[in-house]
């Protein structure tokens, strides 16, 4: 290590310090999102750890001054998707494309017919996470990034690697689906009347 320093090069330790400084501040946000994607604590922890290791190894490619949070979310998403695929879940671009096409034409309003205040009172603790789980992955991820982690459209477009227009339509459809699912839980809890 001393020899490397003599050569005028930063050691792994220097790089490590820099990485920890810019990347570890996003640990909570990454963990929360991983938890919402996997719905499993042990797996979320594992996924976040993998994200940081991958990030550290490719840190030389990270452009300082650009958005570290979006960069880390991109790595998290890719790691999640490769695990997802390894488990035999089919998640190919074609699926997302079909869903996008549907979302262009469909309108969903889960709370239709219910007074809004009644609807919100029926949402129980844990319902949002349960409802998120019912969303197809391309919608779930944009809703998590926008509404729970408050990333901008531009950041989301970078993370999910698609145009901003697609982010917008997935977000609109995703929120509508989420609302619909929450309405369904409300009816199950018996707080909301079934639509006549």
């Amino acid at each position, binding site marked *: *290590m001393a*020899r*490397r320093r*003599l*050569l*005028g*090069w*930063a*050691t*792994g*330790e*220097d*790089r*490590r310090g*820099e*990485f*920890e400084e810019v990347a*570890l501040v996003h*640990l*909570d946000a*990454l*963990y*929360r999102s991983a*938890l919402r994607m996997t719905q499993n604590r042990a797996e979320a*922890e594992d996924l*976040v*750890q993998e994200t*940081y*290791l991958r990030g*550290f*190894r490719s840190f*030389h*490619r*990270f*452009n*300082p001054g650009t958005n570290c949070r979006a960069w880390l979310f991109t790595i998290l998403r890719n790691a999640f998707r490769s695990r997802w695929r390894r488990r035999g879940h089919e998640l190919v671009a074609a699926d997302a494309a079909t869903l996008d096409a549907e979302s262009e034409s469909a309108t969903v309003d889960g*709370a239709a017919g219910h007074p*809004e205040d009644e609807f*919100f009172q029926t*949402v129980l603790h844990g319902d*949002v*996470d349960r409802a998120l789980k019912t969303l197809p992955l391309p919608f779930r991820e944009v*809703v998590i990034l*926008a*509404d*729970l982690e*408050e990333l*901008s*459209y531009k950041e989301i477009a970078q993370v999910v690697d698609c145009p901003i227009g697609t982010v*917008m339509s997935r*977000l*609109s459809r995703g*929120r509508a689906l*989420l*609302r619909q699912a929450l309405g369904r839980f409300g009816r199950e809890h018996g707080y909301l009347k079934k639509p006549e």
Partner: protein
Amino acid sequence: MNCAELEGRLHPFLDGELDVAEMSEADAHVTECPGCRGRVAREREFRQLLRRQPRESAPPELGERIRARIGRSARWAAVRPWLAASAAAAVAAATVLLLPALRAPTPLVSELVDKHIAFTQMEEPAELASGDPEAVARWFRERAGLRVTVPDYSMAGIRLIGARIAEAREHHASYVLYEKGHTPLSIFMVPIPGREADLPGTRVTYRGHEYVTLERKGYRTVSWADGQATFGLVSMLDYDALLECADKLRAGRAREARL
């Protein structure tokens, strides 16, 4: 803006993602249309419901575990090049014994001239376009862990254009591009220690330091090694200018080493 137009922009409107003009048009419509006002209020409330969700923190031991893993990875990264170097040295020794005639590879300087030609022909030769020496030095440090001296030659009318990370002799090398008028000047630093004698060309002394000059493919080069790294300047500028630049770089590097 009418109701249908607002509906189409509802989400970007609520997320504050419309441009200023559209934002104020949407605002104006919502103010005067009770139907849309209700719609916006409902969506807003839904958004708040989502944002009110518990914001869990990562378990403290997860952070510790990640730090430890990164630490192990960093230590391994520090050791790896030396393992590779000793393996390469073993191969080199064997090669010298068996095939002494193949001992001399292409001189490093020729490689640098080829890179100079390739980079300066690119539409955007610099990965980082910047005229600020400090920003360039910081970029090398953060991007590739390279400590690079980036002299300011603006007093001599030589403008800093930017930088990139190059590969030379299987090492990350720093590449800094300057321009005098339309004549590019490339400065490389390759982290391989060597002695001046290892560099082919004419030995010259300039302000008490030894350099090697060599012309390749119509470009002039000035190179030297300081026991830590090998430096090469490539340009069509004359030798006086190149030696002056080299001397400034050397002085800057010595100054930084003292700090």
